[in-house]
């Protein structure tokens, strides 16, 4: 598939919003891939973290917002901790989820049924609270 790039696309304000919300500079990423290399859940992602950033560099925000990746991230901060350029993919991920959740692009990840099941089991409260905050907004 050919991607026809335009200045408007790469300077899209949606990308600005990701930068502001995450506090990260998208163009600082030099695509070394280290974030992806160390991510514990990368196997479950449809787009690996470094490619998510690359797509943002290319202005492809929609593709990224509809990815599975942003819901898979466990916020372990390994990517941010090892990035040679100080880019925190974990924060970018949070920002992308926030965008989706705030404009209700997707239904909340943790559904009521799932939640009761978990509540019934013995998962620590913090896990439930954490999941709700990260994945349901």
């Amino acid at each position: 598939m050919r991607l026809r790039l335009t200045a408007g696309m790469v300077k899209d304000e949606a990308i600005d919003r990701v930068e502001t919300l995450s506090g990260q500079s998208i163009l600082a990423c030099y695509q070394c891939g280290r974030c992806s290399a160390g991510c514990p859940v990368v196997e479950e992602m449809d787009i690996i973290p470094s490619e998510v950033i690359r797509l943002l560099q290319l202005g492809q925000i929609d593709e990224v917002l509809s990815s599975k990746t942003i819901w898979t991230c466990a916020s372990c901060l390994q990517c941010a901790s090892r990035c040679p350029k100080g880019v925190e993919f974990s924060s970018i991920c949070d920002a992308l989820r926030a965008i989706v959740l705030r404009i209700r692009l997707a239904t909340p990840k943790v559904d009521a049924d799932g939640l009761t099941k978990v509540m019934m089991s013995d998962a620590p409260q913090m896990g439930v609270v954490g999941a709700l905050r990260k994945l349901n907004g």
Partner: protein
Amino acid sequence: MEERIGVFVCHCGTNIAGVVDVKRVAEELADYPGVAYSTDYTYMCSDPGQNLVKDAIKKHNLTGVIVAACSPTLHEATFRRAGMTAGMNQYQVEIANIREQCSWVHQGDKEAATSKAIRTIKVMIEKARLDEALEPISVPMTPRALVVGGGIAGIQAALDVANAGHEVILVEKSASIGGHMAQLSETFPTLDCSQCIMTPKMVEVAQHPKIRLMTYSEVDDVSGYVGNFKVKIRKKAAYVNRDVCTGCGLCVEKCPAKTPSEFDEQLADRKAIYTPFPQAVPNKPVLDAEHCTYFLKDGKCGICAKVCPLDCIDYEQKDEFIEEEVGAIIVATGYDLYPIENLGEYGGGKYADVITSLQFERMLSASGPTGGEVLRPSDGEVPSEVVFLTCCGSRDTENHLPYCSKICCMYLTKHAMLYRHKVHDGQAYVFYMDVRTGGKGYEEFYTRAAEEDDVLYIRGKVSKIFEEDGRVMVWGVDTLSGRKIEIAADMAVLGLATVPNEAAAKLASMLKIHTDEWGFLSEAHPKLRPVESLTPGFYLAGSAQGPKDIPESVAQASAAASKVAALFAETEYHREPVIAVIDEDTCAGCRVCISVCPYDAAEFDDEKKVARIKEAICEGCGACIAACPSGSAQQKNLTDEQLYKMVSAALEV
């Protein structure tokens, strides 16, 4: 005499004129008191530009010249020379910096930049108004060079200066010259054996009648200035009378005490009394007291002294200090590898089979600890899969060092290639971000590795290395395919960043030469004066100035040597005459100036009861002048009066 000052405003193409309204500047200044001529021109430093200045000096009978252009560090000398050819005293030519400190830094505000340019020029006009005609102070030149560091750069520089007919003292802190190049196996891009091309040069140094080689020595103190440095060199106690020693090696053979060898990068042991490697120059041992039984256990042992046929061992030997005079100093203190301990994500040095690039180099070397065989340090097996990692600590602004170490892409390519030559069915992987091959024949070398030697290049940075089931697990990524990659390898080689030699920082601060924030020596100008320090008399060679491979180190060493030879071509050195003077009539004889002068350049005249400046020594720092309570001490061409007027001009509205 009434001043007649000429003002020449440079456009520097659009560098200045794009921001500063040069026409307006030239026009406004034409009316400034004392200005007899004012003009502007596209490129003042070009031939026509310089001619413009020269012609104006003659035509308008100028008494002072202001060139408003780039920083004085760039072209002050150029325009002073031009002034001289037109018959003007060079110290009456001044530069007003309206580029580096004006047009380039105020690009957004043309009006303010223009007004700042005008004030900047007025400051210099006020100075020039009172500038006296001065003559450079000439001091005798000691045509002898000191070279610090005996790696390939220091060796080459020493040989070139010596071959130009001047004496050289080469000081090396370790027991032999050779530096890191002596540790290398074969060298890119031609794969010639490092020892083979290096040894003859080392021998030449040792035998050169003009070179005084001082190994196991360090520079302890330097004073003076270009042409007339006094250096104090400390010859460290070797506990061996190396003048008498024949290098028979008996002592080394019999010594019972062992410690890991620095030369072999800890992969093998050396004795407490040792020569670092078989081809060492000088090939005579030194005794390392820190690991010697005799020193550690109060006189127990003493075997070396017993076996030495020439009674060379002297446990009482002390450090010896030698003072020498030299006219120029070449610093070639080289590099080290970034410590592996800093890379915790790769094990930080705790896994035996994750090794540094220099360790691998020793392993590849025919004279190395494995006799040139590639063997896993943990079990001595031949590794069938080896992973090479680029940029270990380099290009990492966040956790390590921001710069590119320049040589590692090439040496890792060499490593992968040599590994494949030695282990024919072995698999080599190189994780890379970019393969940087900016040298003659380098890209071809890399292509050969990939195409002919089947080295697999994987584009991505490794995140973690750990040991699992006796293998080295590498977690990487291939950004080209978007796959996370896991390799269970037998060995991993880290292309660690190059950093300045640890000992270089101390030396640089003693010599008062600048370093960049990472500790590499700073050159006087990044493009036009790459082998000189800003401080006159100091020259830079090799990887002490920045990461470099051998060809570049050698080229820079030869360049530094030619600079030194040019310096020594004159029998006298001319020093700036902008030094202190004391007005005998007003001096109260309080001796404050004498007490503050860091160079002992102020002395007391017992007869006249006043202070006096020793012209040959005064550096013109101005400390005495600021301290003198009676205002009797002044700086030539930067007198208090000049400074007051300059300050006033800076504040004109």
